[in-house]
Each structure stands twice: as C-alpha cells, then as structure tokens.
C-alpha cells in the first residue's frame, strides 16, 4: 500500500459533476483504485483534511482539483494540495477557465445577495437579515466564510501543471490523464491533456460546412427544427465549435445541440470568448438587415454565448457593475 502512488481529489466551487466523471470510469475505477492510493476524496471517502495535512511536501504523486475558486477556504485547500502534490491537474472547465459559475463575474455580490435574501418572490424576511460572517445565537458564535467578490480560475491562485477541460471531462481523456501520470509519460508542463484540433475539425457535420460561412440570419435553437446533419452555423444557429478545442466526443452536437465552448480555446488562444466574438463577427454578413453590424446586434446575449465557460480567464477581468451584460 505504501508504495502505491498517492492521489488526492478535491472540490472547490464545483457542482460535483467532475466527481461523477471519475465514477464514470465504471469498472476501470476499480483498477485505478488498485493501482493508486486515494488519500482524499470527500464525496466518496471518509478521510478528513488532517489526513492530507499529515503528508510531507510533494509526497502525493498527483493532486486533482475541480471547481473555480471563490473564497478563502478554497484558496487554502488549493494551496495545501499544491504543497503536498508533485503534480496538480486542473480538472474540468471550472478549474481550467472558471466555468459556468464564472458568469457570476458579470454580477456583483450585492446584487446576488439582494435578490436571494430580499427580493425573490418566496423570501420571508421581515427583519431584512442577510447571512453574516459572524452571528451570535443564544450566546453561541456561528461563523460563515466570506466570499471574494470574484470567481478565479485555479491557475490564478496556484501553479498548475496540467489542464483537463470539459464539463465534465470525458472518461477516455480522464483515463489517458491518469495513465500518463502513472507511466510518467507526460507532455511539457502547462499542457492541456486533450486534442489540439478545433471542434469543427472533428465534428461529424464538418462536411456540410462550406469553405466560407456567411451567417445572414441568426436563429435560436428552440425556434427551429434544426437539421441534425448540417453545420449549425450554416443554419444560422450560434455554435462555438470553430473557437473551441476538440476532445468532448461531440456529445452536444450528437443530440442536435450546438457547442457552448466547454473545452475552452483552441491551442495558441488564451481568451476563448474574445476570440469567438471576433471570429463570429467575421462570419456575419448583412442578410435581412443589409448591415452586418445590425445582424451582430440581433444576437441576444453574445457575452453569455461566448464566455459561457471562460469569463474568469478572459481579458474582461473584473466584473461589469452595470445591469445585464
């Protein structure tokens, strides 16, 4: 037991879908459990944090972290994992780019609190109380962690060795990553453990994509009966396959649903959303409006499409303080 490589898995601001992705290894997980010693995995195992603290620096072969970083505790856990692990793998879109929860960077904490604890139609809060970092109840003190007013990617908080994107990462890439670590056959530090191609290159609809796409009208997915074999962009439906890394297995495309970019930018691009927006604007032609600018303006919520998984890693940086972005 002592000779097996030690692995720890932990969540930060995560939905636990990445934990399910590990369980999705199915029978292979039993082989993984035989090959390695899992020393922390809160969703499934009863090891507590002091167990992790008890290891020496870099004693763990691999620390896997999923979720974005939103508060001080998460930052501490990330730093503890970094100290104890030879390698850190940012697992899933939230750890890699901020993920869907990164959309919270478009709102203020105050706005969120006001809605959740005051304005929502089901709230009963006659005294107008909000959760507090410290509360006294019958002489007893109860504390809650305070939140950062911003969502961070994992590598904005600690040094990350490898990235495995996806919402969640698919089982084949998870297994490849584990095997790469176990065999020591690793690419250069900082690599993304996924194919280098764009999703369009591996998309089964690629053959219907013309040399030059010209979007002349923009349609929303529920408004049309999308053809299940034709490129979404050709149909005027926003799809981010051209700006997104491949590796997901085209699962959304397979159920006639366009890409929203969970695998992050293609190699060589750091800001997925900005790249997607600029590329999209090049594809848009005048069409019904006779003016590409007007057609572009007819796209509702371009930020929500293009930064769906990547706001925290984008050049937008700090949140907008305005109303809907």
């Amino acid at each position: 037991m002592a000779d097996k490589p030690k692995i720890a898995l932990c969540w930060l601001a995560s939905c636990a879908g990445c934990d399910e992705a590990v369980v999705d290894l199915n029978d292979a997980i039993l082989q993984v459990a035989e090959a390695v010693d899992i020393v922390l995995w809160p969703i499934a195992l009863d090891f507590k944090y002091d167990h992790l603290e008890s290891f020496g620096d870099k004693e763990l072969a691999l620390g896997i972290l999923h979720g974005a970083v939103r508060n001080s505790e998460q930052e501490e856990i990330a730093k503890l994992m970094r100290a104890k692990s030879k390698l850190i793998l940012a697992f899933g879109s939230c750890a890699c780019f901020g993920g869907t929860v990164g959309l919270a960077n478009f709102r203020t904490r105050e706005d969120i609190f006001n809605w959740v604890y005051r304005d929502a139609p089901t709230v009963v809060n006659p005294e107008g109380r909000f959760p507090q970092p410290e509360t006294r109840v019958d002489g007893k003190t109860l504390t809650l962690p305070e939140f950062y007013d911003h969502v961070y990617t994992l590598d904005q908080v600690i040094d990350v060795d490898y990235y495995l994107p996806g919402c969640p990462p698919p089982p084949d890439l998870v297994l490849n990553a584990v095997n790469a670590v176990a065999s020591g056959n690793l690419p250069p530090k900082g690599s993304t453990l996924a194919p280098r191609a764009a999703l369009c290159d591996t998309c089964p609809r690629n053959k219907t994509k013309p040399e030059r796409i010209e979007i002349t009208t923009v349609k929303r997915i529920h408004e049309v009966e999308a053809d299940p074999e034709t490129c979404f962009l050709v149909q005027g439906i926003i799809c981010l396959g051209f700006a997104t890394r491949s590796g997901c297995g085209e699962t959304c495309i397979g159920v006639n649903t366009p890409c929203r970019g969970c695998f992050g930018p293609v190699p060589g691009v750091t800001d997925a959303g900005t790249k997607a927006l600029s590329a999209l604007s090049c594809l848009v032609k005048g069409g019904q409006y006779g003016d590409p600018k007007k057609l572009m303006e007819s796209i509702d919520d371009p930020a929500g499409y293009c930064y769906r998984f990547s706001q925290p890693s984008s050049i937008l940086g700090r949140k907008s303080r305005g109303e809907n972005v």
Partner: protein
Amino acid sequence: MSKKITINPITRLEGHGKIEIFLDDDGKVEDAFWQVVELRGFERFCLGRPAEEMTRIAPNICGVCPSAHHMAATKALDGLYGVDPTPTAKLIRQLEYNAFVIEDHYIHFFFLAAPDFVVGPDAHPAARNILGLIDKVGKETGLKVIEVRKRNREIIKYIFGKAAHPEGGLPGGVPGRITEEARKWIRETADFTVEFARFALQLFRDTVLGNKEYLEMVQSEAYKLKTYYMALVDENKKVTFYDGKVRVVDPEGNQYALFDPQDYTEHIGEWVEPWTYVKLTHLRKIGWKGLMVGDGTSLYRVGPLARLNVAEGMATPLAQEAYEEMFETLGGKPAHHTLAMNWARLICALQAAEHNQIIAADPFLTSKDIRNMDLRLRREGVGCVEAPRGTLFHHYKTDRNGILTMVNLIVATQHNAAPICLSVKQAAQEFVRGTDVKEGFLNRVEMAFRAYDPCLACATHALPGTIPFSINIRDKEGKIIRKL
C-alpha cells in the same frame, strides 16, 4: 469547563457544509447547528440570457442531479412558451428522467449511505466507503452496482448527450427520436434494472432489517422527526417523478394541501437566518415558527420517504408491495424515521425501473413526432419535477424576446434544510457526551444528515464558494475542542 467538537470535512455527500455542536458544562449537547457555507449566483447571473439557454446552464447547479435541473428547466420552458410536449416527447423525457432517478438513488445508496450499514458505522474510516463495501459484499455485486449505474446513464447519454451535464431540452419536445434498435437495449436495461432493484431491496432486508442493532437504530427516537411532508403525486395520488400536483400531508398523514406547481409562491416561504447561506423553506400559510417540530410547526420534509408518506401508494406493482412492507415494518403511515429514507429510496428506484419497462414497450416511444412547435411566448413559466432529493421548482419570467428577467429556484435540499438541523441536533444529543466521543458515534451524527442525501451544491445555487463539510464541537465559550 464546557466543550465543543468539530468534524472536518463531513464526507460522503454532495457539497460543503459544517456542523457546530455546543456542549454545556456537563458535556451534554446543548445545541447543534447545521450550516451551509456556500452560495452561488445562478438566479442572478442567468438574467439577460435567452431562456432556452437555461436547460444548458441549470445542469451546472449540480453535477449529481443535473438531470433534475435540466428537466425542471425544460418544463419551465414548456410553461413559458405555453406548449405541451408531444406524447412521444413526454415518453422520452420520462424514460430519461426515470433512468436518472435510478442511477442517482443507487449512487447515494451504495456509494454514500450503505457503507454505514454494510461496512458498519464503527468500521475504520478508511474502509467505510464504496471500496470497503465491495470488499464486504463481493466484487461481483460491486460490478453489478457499477453496471446498473452505467447502463442507466447510457439512456441519459442517448437522449441528452451527457449524463453529468445533459443537453438539448427544448420547449415542447426533445432533441432527438428513439430508434427501434435503441428500444431493444433500452428494454434490456429496464429489465436488468428491475432485477437489480429487487436485489438491492433484498440486500437492505438482509443487512439492515436482518440486523437487530441496525433495525433498532432505524426505529430509534434519535432518528425520528415529526414534520409535514411534500411531494408530487399523479392523478391517482400515487408517487410520480416527472409531473403531477404538489401534495402536502400533516404530521398525522392527513392532506394539508394539494396545489398546482405554478402556485408554489402561495404555499412555500423561504426564511433567512444570518448563520447559514441556505434559506429555510416552510409552509408559508402557517408562517415561520422557528427550528422546531411538534404542535404548530411549519416545517416539512421532501425526498424518498416524503414521497411515500405523501402518496396513497406506488404507481407500479412491485414497488407497491415494497411500500406496504415498509410501512408495516415501521408501524404505519406516516413514517417519521429519518433513516428509513434509505429504504424508501430503494423503493422509488424500483418504481422508476418498472415504469421504464412500461415505457420501453410503448409503441409511441419510437414515433418521429418529438417536437411541438406551436410556441407562444407567455413570458412566465414554472417547471416542477420530483428530483431524487425532493420537489424542485424552476420559475422564470422573460421580456417579449424570451430573455430572462427573473429566475427563482427552490431546490430539494432547501426544503430539508431546517429538518436536517433538527435531525443533526437530535442525533448529537443521543450520541455525543463530552468531548471524548468515539469516531463511530460522530459518524452516527453524520448518518442523520446523510440519510437526506443532502445536495449542498443544489441548495446554494445562489454564488460559488465552498468549504468542506465539517463538524465542530465547541465549549460554552465557543472554543473548538474537537474537530473531525
């Protein structure tokens, strides 16, 4: 001097939270608080986005029950666009939803809850998990557990692309049809699952009911809480997952309310306490009466046991037999036994499996009529499903272009939040005396909330930010004297 104990992190649940146990001068538990320490921002950061994107964003609320959020969002879109799904689309949605209820209930039972019973509440923490369970029940059984989960998740993937983040729910329909070829393996999966469901119930009978100590634990007052119960029921007042009316029964089992999900704001209130990020739901017409049960309480519970307490029976024959056996063993309805939630969960999974056998044989399943395109934006919609952990509400309003202007979500773990506080306090009062508490006894405190299968990722849909679940035991001065 009085003392306090901490457990950190509390494990085998989805999400993060902590428990604070306060001891008096004699080392007896004076009070205990179950705190949810994270909050995310879904209701706000979805504003300004096209409503149809909610089926793609909402599954990120929780990766354990993404299908529940995906389906609630899809049904809210039905309401928003004033459209009913075609009969085939409804069948396909139900097929997927049942498959999800099955795999979700089994991941909780086998990975999270059963290690306490099968491996034992006092077993070494290193063995008290799915791997320890497989050691105990044999690899063959372990592989069956993995297989039932895998095969049902294949159904989800076939219909909505990804099990951990389903995609493609549309107002009035589903994104793709089911072929006759697929029907064959879907039917085989449904048959396999019914057999597995019977096996799982037998395992429960053998390991829990057949063990005097465990049965006493299930029946012990330390794990009972007399509350109202809420769940969806079908037109015959039977257990249902995909659709129905909301029924509430009082602590004696009498119907207290029966309402259409779109009227939820009249019946459900969310109380705010400064010491937790989760809002505490209660029956709004009774009003917030504090963290208390008994006469005058406004607290209710949701989830598998609530479904069985609320309904007048199961919708399928084998599940009905199991339902009758459970209430007979527990001494009638309603059953207030918190640990019986684990039992009820297995009965719910059996109904979902039997229902999928029926759906798999339905001639309409493979029809090409999967979209109702008669969309008329009504600018408001409520979607409600019975999520594995209990009744889930998604409520959206939009502008005239179908862009979201209001999102309100009420999730299962929120309904259970106040009762979980009380269950934890009860268990702590029973098992904790002084600071020198055996690990297995603190695990018994954890078992009190674990039975609810609390999903804190869901409960705190509102700002990302998490810390691990922990238990602190504190002395009268509030100093932490034990942390687990």
